[in-house]
């Protein structure tokens, strides 16, 4: 009998079966995950969603900022006077350097032009306010209040009054996300001031940085100051980054373990400066072709390279 086992017509209108819906949504979110991780081409979705989410987040920050406002309103006159005096002292202390800075810069530019060395870039930027810390417990990021509207692009370095804070990694219409130098995936090319040795400082994710791949016998002491080396085309040279706090030399390993703490108030709130992107570095010279290759395949590669080189001029 064909008519017995067929299902009756649905009495109530219902959507697709829950399991089908679950499969669809799980596939969708896994696809989003993979695309965001591998291709990183979902910025348009992120930006459009942030137009809705960003006002909500700013609204959620208002109670906290109101408490701050009340605190700053109720702070005593004496405290303010003391702070004012301290700031005056600090200004006076830096005055000799600052007053001669213009003169020195001019002299530097003249000497450089005499030596026919490329001019040094000037650091310019715009001041931004840190709005809030991103809620993600796995990364160290803050959100600042300038975005595409202010012309911010991803990759710009961010500093505060003492040193490098981080780098802009994502830009939204009205805000931008700054990854701090202590984030686990963040690396800053640095130079030890005392010896001039170059290295790369990696964030550890716990508020510290580590100098990696430094030989165990390298001349690094605790207390050394690290500044940006400017080799990456992102950070200008000479900004303070971190101070070495601990050097572990273990004979079992070929590298020393060097821990540093950031000099800038990386975990503080307040105002930061987003520096303009650097001028692009000159093209690296073409790689030299080695002549010592013996394998058959290498020879063919060499030959094709030679052919290309012959065609090029």
């Amino acid at each position, binding site marked *: 009998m064909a008519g017995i086992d067929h299902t009756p017509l649905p009495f109530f209108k219902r959507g697709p079966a*829950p399991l089908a*819906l*679950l499969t669809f*949504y*799980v596939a*969708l*979110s*896994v*696809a*989003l*995950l993979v*695309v*965001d*991780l591998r291709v990183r081409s*979902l910025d348009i*979705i*992120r930006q459009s*969603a*942030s137009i*809705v*989410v960003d006002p*909500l*987040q700013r*609204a*959620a*920050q208002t*109670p*906290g900022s109101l408490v701050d406002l009340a605190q700053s309103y109720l702070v005593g006159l004496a405290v303010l006077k003391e702070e004012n005096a301290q700031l005056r002292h600090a200004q006076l202390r830096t005055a000799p350097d600052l007053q001669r800075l213009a003169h020195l810069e001019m002299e530097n530019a003249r000497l450089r032009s005499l030596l026919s060395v490329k001019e040094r870039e000037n650091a310019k930027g715009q001041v931004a306010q840190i709005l*809030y*810390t*991103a*809620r*993600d*417990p*796995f*990364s160290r*990021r803050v*959100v600042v209040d300038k975005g595409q509207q202010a012309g911010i692009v991803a990759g710009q370095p961010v500093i505060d009054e003492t040193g490098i804070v981080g780098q802009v990694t*994502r830009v939204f219409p009205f805000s931008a*996300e700054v990854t701090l130098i202590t984030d*686990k*995936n963040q690396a800053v090319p640095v130079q030890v001031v005392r010896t001039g040795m170059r290295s790369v400082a990696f964030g550890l*994710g716990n508020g510290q940085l580590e100098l990696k791949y430094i030989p165990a016998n390298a001349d690094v002491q605790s207390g050394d100051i690290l500044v940006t080396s400017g080799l990456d085309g992102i950070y200008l040279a000479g900004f303070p980054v971190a101070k070495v706090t601990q050097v572990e030399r273990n004979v079992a390993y070929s590298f020393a373990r060097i821990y540093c703490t950031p000099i800038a108030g990386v975990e503080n709130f307040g105002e930061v400066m987003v520096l303009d992107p650097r001028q692009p570095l000159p093209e690296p010279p073409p790689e030299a072709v080695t002549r010592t290759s013996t394998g058959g395949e290498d020879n063919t590669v060499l030959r094709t390279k030679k052919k290309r080189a012959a065609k090029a001029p």
Partner: protein
Amino acid sequence: MQPTYTSSRILLPVRPWFVFFSLFCALLLNFLPTSHWPGVPDWVALVLCFWSVRESRYIGMGWAFICGIAMDVADGAILGQHALAYILLAYGASQLSRRILWFPLAQQALHVMPLLVMAQVIPVLIRLLTGADFPGWGYFISPFVASTLWVPATFVLLLPQYQPLEQDPDRPI
């Protein structure tokens, strides 16, 4: 529907705007700076789980997905990380809803706890797979706090559906 299966009070039908308003409030609560403190529950997960158990006609995997994307964008996390967790939470809650509602509230909280723990563990697993560090055990306190909040959440979220005990036909409101 009754507030609990032993109760003899009949609830008014839920108002859809209140369901979405409560989700909106949960999102706002999640965006507060307090969410950095250890043990502060994931409010969106709690509210989503509650409505998936109670009213799976209004709140299902679609809204879970939208809330998840909003949370991902707000966190600056990988897109789809919270979405996946919330979708599985909504699915589990709606599948268990026929069973859960037959228990007293404390036991309902026990039933919901594994779902909330799962919603907290999935983002950790995804981030560990992509090379992040383990965030520490303090991160896992919040689903247990959230499940102890099941009883107060039930009271608060069902509040607009209670009818007055003594109804006076002459009273205007």
